[in-house]
């Protein structure tokens, strides 16, 4: 089955929509421009002027969190192994929003007051420790890189079913991918965060259109949900010859409960530690913008839930996701399903929605990673007195470097490397939670103890993930669930590593306190955590009053 036929109508629709979106991306530079400064500061380039209202933030975060890889991987997991590895995405995105309702407005307020651009900025200001800040920043950058790479995997799935590329010529295969990324890199460079914000609106409308039509039309075509769930139950219950176990899970049994809920909870806690999520939050206009979004973003979760069920629809439809080299690749399931059962022009719209869905998060992720580098590595360690314009320039260049890195990742390495790294990234990023989120509420933890807890969590998580062996291929990094050491209670590794992290941080804090180790300067005040857009920023207060900080330790909430 080498060399698929090119579906010209679908391909032309995809190209047209891609070009339209690219033009929007370049025009976005002039959108909502306020100051005479242009895009010459991180606030303007990297946070879109910090002025996005409720609806733009809704589209931006929706486009940011529900990525092309999500659209491809969640139904793929449902198709291949069922509920535990696929449908957990639904409780995950349900419990996500109450959590961000609670924590994110506080992060917004303190960042607004102090001009923080990244979560590592906040950690640096709160704990007076650039090393802890560096740990948070590096974790963010390292976890983001494979995530960007996976967006390319999403685009690749679309290009493959469209018939582009061959298994022989590597360069020819990857040419459209490289082209798409050069365009993406160019408009991110010129327009900053405004470009993905604007494109996200188009992308989300296309996705909603595709999913709504598919969810209404396909079940009717395939004999209703009854038949579809019946086919899924049969397929997932079939015993796999190699392992002697069923192919997947249709409805989780008691043995799977702990894996199911820890996957959902751990992923929800981790998602807003990712730099691109923080960037989306800090780009909003007011303290309550993110809270209003907590009530309206679940619409995306509903869409994701139905999209996941399309994996079951594909089982009933008999979709054959055959890759260029003839092997079965579950990630092609959804693109193939659209191509098989819809007119070419509509399949083109749906495939374009997935491909554009890769561009929005890829842009935001590269901006977020670049901001981390500029603020918490370049400024903190090399140029403490850097001006705003240089910061923006450094960030622009780093955003290009990050994207090239991701591209090399996908082209030069095996696709499974990117997936393994992404799996590890989720485990690693959750280890920044104690420093960032606990720091929003209390300064009780010691900075060095947090650093040690972070290191312990990362080491434990990495080793545990390495030790998970795929029962069929015997490869390492075979999954993200492992028993808690000494028990047979299977949980998401990120969660057990997180628990270890907290324990180490707490115990070491007690030890360091007993040894009277200096705790570092906290530049934040209790008043900062409730500030709104109308409250003056710290620089403004200091400008009008030449306020000199009183000596001694600041009051800590």
């Amino acid at each position, binding site marked *: 089955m080498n060399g698929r036929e090119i579906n010209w109508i679908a391909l032309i629709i995809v190209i047209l929509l891609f070009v339209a979106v690219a033009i929007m991306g370049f025009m976005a530079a002039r959108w909502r421009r306020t100051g005479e400064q242009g895009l010459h500061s991180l606030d303007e380039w990297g946070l879109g002027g910090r002025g996005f209202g409720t609806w733009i933030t809704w589209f931006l975060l929706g486009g940011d969190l529900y990525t092309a890889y999500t659209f491809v991987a969640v139904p793929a997991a449902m198709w291949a192994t069922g*509920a535990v590895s696929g*449908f957990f995405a*639904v*409780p995950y995105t*349900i*419990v996500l*929003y*109450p959590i961000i*309702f*609670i924590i994110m*407005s*506080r992060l917004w307020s303190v960042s607004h007051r*102090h*001009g*923080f651009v990244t979560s590592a900025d906040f950690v*640096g*200001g709160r704990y007076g420790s650039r090393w802890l800040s560096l740990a948070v920043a590096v974790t963010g950058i390292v976890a983001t890189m494979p995530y960007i790479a996976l967006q390319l995997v999403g685009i690749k799935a679309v290009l493959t079913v469209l018939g582009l590329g061959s298994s022989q010529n590597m360069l020819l295969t990857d040419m459209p991918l490289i082209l798409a990324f050069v365009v993406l890199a160019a408009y991110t460079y010129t327009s900053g965060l405004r470009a993905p914000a604007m494109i996200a609106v188009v992308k989300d409308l296309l996705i909603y259109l595709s999913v709504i039509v598919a969810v209404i039309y396909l079940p009717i075509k395939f004999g*209703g949900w*009854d*038949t*579809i*769930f019946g086919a899924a139950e049969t397929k997932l219950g079939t015993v796999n010859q190699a392992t002697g176990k069923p192919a997947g899970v249709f*409805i*989780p*049994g008691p043995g*799977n*409960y702990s894996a*199911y*809920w820890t996957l959902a*909870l751990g992923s929800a806690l981790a998602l807003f530690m990712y730099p691109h999520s923080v960037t989306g939050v800090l780009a909003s206009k007011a303290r*309550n913008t993110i*809270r209003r979004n*907590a*009530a309206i973003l*679940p619409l995306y*979760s*509903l869409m994701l*839930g139905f999209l996941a*069920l399309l994996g079951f629809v594909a089982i009933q439809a008999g979709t054959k996701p055959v890759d260029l080299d003839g092997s079965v690749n579950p990630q092609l399931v959804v693109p193939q399903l659209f191509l098989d059962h819809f007119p070419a022009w509509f399949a083109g719209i749906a495939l374009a929605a997935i491909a554009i869905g890769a561009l929005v998060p890829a842009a935001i992720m590269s901006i977020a990673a670049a901001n981390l580098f500029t603020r918490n590595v370049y400024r903190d360690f090399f140029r403490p007195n850097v001006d705003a314009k240089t910061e923006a320039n450094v960030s622009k260049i780093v955003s290009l470097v990050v994207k090239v890195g991701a591209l090399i990742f996908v082209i030069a390495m095996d696709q499974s490397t990117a997936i393994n790294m992404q799996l590890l990234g989720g485990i690693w990023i959750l280890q920044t939670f104690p420093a960032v989120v606990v720091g929003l509420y209390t300064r009780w933890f010691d900075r060095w103890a947090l650093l040690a807890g972070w290191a312990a969590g990362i080491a434990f998580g990495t080793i545990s993930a390495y030790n998970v062996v795929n029962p069929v291929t015997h490869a390492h990094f075979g999954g993200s669930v492992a028993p808690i050491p000494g028990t047979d209670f299977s949980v998401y590794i990120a969660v057990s590593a997180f628990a270890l992290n907290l324990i180490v941080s707490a115990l070491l804090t007690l030890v360091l306190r007993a040894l009277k180790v200096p705790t570092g300067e906290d*530049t934040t*005040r*209790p*008043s*900062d*955590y*409730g*500030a*709104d857009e109308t409250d*003056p920023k*710290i*620089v403004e*207060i*200091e*400008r*009008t*009053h*030449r306020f*000199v*900080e009183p000596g001694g330790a600041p009051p800590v*909430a």
Partner: protein
Amino acid sequence: MSRHDGPDPNHHPNPPVPRGRRLTRETPTRGPARRTPYVIAGILLAAAILLPLLPQTYSFAAPRVGGMPFFYWYQLLWVPISAALSGIAYWLVTTEDRRRRAAARAASLPAEGQAGTASEGDQR
């Protein structure tokens, strides 16, 4: 910014203080909180976080709705429920927030003697 804007790097001469209003970094941005709205909002949000994380309460096939096993439609049903709970919590918290802000601003206007000592109580 963070730690680099500490004890004044600029050494400006003291600019005129705006009439009647003395803001410092300690000036509360919000007045003291009333407990009730936060407690209720907290319970609603806790329910929206905890209940979807209990698969033992919904991991069944029956009853089916429109051919969909309970396990699947129940979780999809939680999406609008969670949105509604967040919506109510939003209303409770922002109403109280507005009151606290108004209280803080009224308090800081006559100013002078009390800046920096008022209790804060920023709970969320």
